[in-house]
């Protein structure tokens, strides 16, 4: 499906998403017309989903980031659906993941400071439906976060 040149294009674009198609073409050593056609094709088949701006929440005053690992009461048939639907309504939730393992759902929550986090936790998190257990992991530092694929 993809050849070496495609993968090289993706590798370079992954490491610097601000590169223009012409700059990418130059790094990979093909003409910009060829690069544009390859990128368009990879967009078409859904390999490339898009380019997002990255928001630095700390710069916006959100200094606290907590990972909440939640076990749900699985005797409730709609536990996952109800829980996720309610979690979507909490603005400070930035990620919702479901898992196979000891943890059922993980919420990533950001807050301005500890009192703000306490407030979100008590008023918005503990009131979510079907929670059996919660563990909180507080982030101290982000060591690696580019989320690149090993192409």
């Amino acid at each position, binding site marked *: 499906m*993809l050849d070496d040149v495609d993968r090289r294009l*993706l590798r370079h*674009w*992954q490491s610097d*998403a*601000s590169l223009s198609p012409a700059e990418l073409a130059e790094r990979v050593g093909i003409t910009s017309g060829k690069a544009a056609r390859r990128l368009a094709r990879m967009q078409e*088949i*859904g*390999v*490339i*989903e*898009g*380019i*997002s*701006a*990255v*928001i*630095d*929440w700390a*710069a*916006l*005053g*959100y200094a606290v980031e907590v*990972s909440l690992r939640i076990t749900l009461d699985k005797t409730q048939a709609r536990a996952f659906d109800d829980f*996720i639907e309610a979690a*979507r309504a909490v*603005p*400070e*939730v*930035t*990620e*919702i*993941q*479901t*898992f*196979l*393992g*000891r*943890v059922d759902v*993980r919420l990533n929550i*950001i807050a301005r400071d500890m009192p703000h986090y306490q407030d979100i936790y008590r008023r918005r998190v503990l009131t979510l439906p079907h929670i059996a257990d919660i*563990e*909180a*992991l*507080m*982030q*101290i*530092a*982000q*060591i*690696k*976060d*580019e*989320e*690149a*694929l*090993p*192409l």
Partner: protein
Amino acid sequence: MIDLDDLDRALLRALTRDATQSAGALGRRLGLSQPATWRRIRKLEMAGILNGRRLRLNAEKLGFGVTVFLGVKLATKGRVSLEDFERAVSAIPEVQRVEHILGLYDYRLRVVARDLPDFERVLRRRIMTLPGVGEVEANVLLSEERRAGPIA
């Protein structure tokens, strides 16, 4: 720190969906002139709020069918340097995210692999051999949703 108004928030939402939109196109949608839109984007960049761009790739279509979150505890705290562990774990290509955390574990890793046998190989050969690594808990990702966060 700057205070955002509704237009700033709308700009941030639009740019996290697609960062390649021109100031002109964004402005037209928000009822702003092109120079006014450009000034706002510049202001958000200068404040560090807009912090670069990220290419979104479809992992599954590229052959990466498995994502696992690992909780890692260091076995020999004090004896192994955190820097050594962090440097070694960050150098593993399959490790996409490394977070130093406080709680049940010391580090949280996001690991991507082609399939479960490939994940097992990464876990045994690369993660379990890291300096100081102790107890490891794995949870296999089933679904994931990124939310806009408190700019909606």
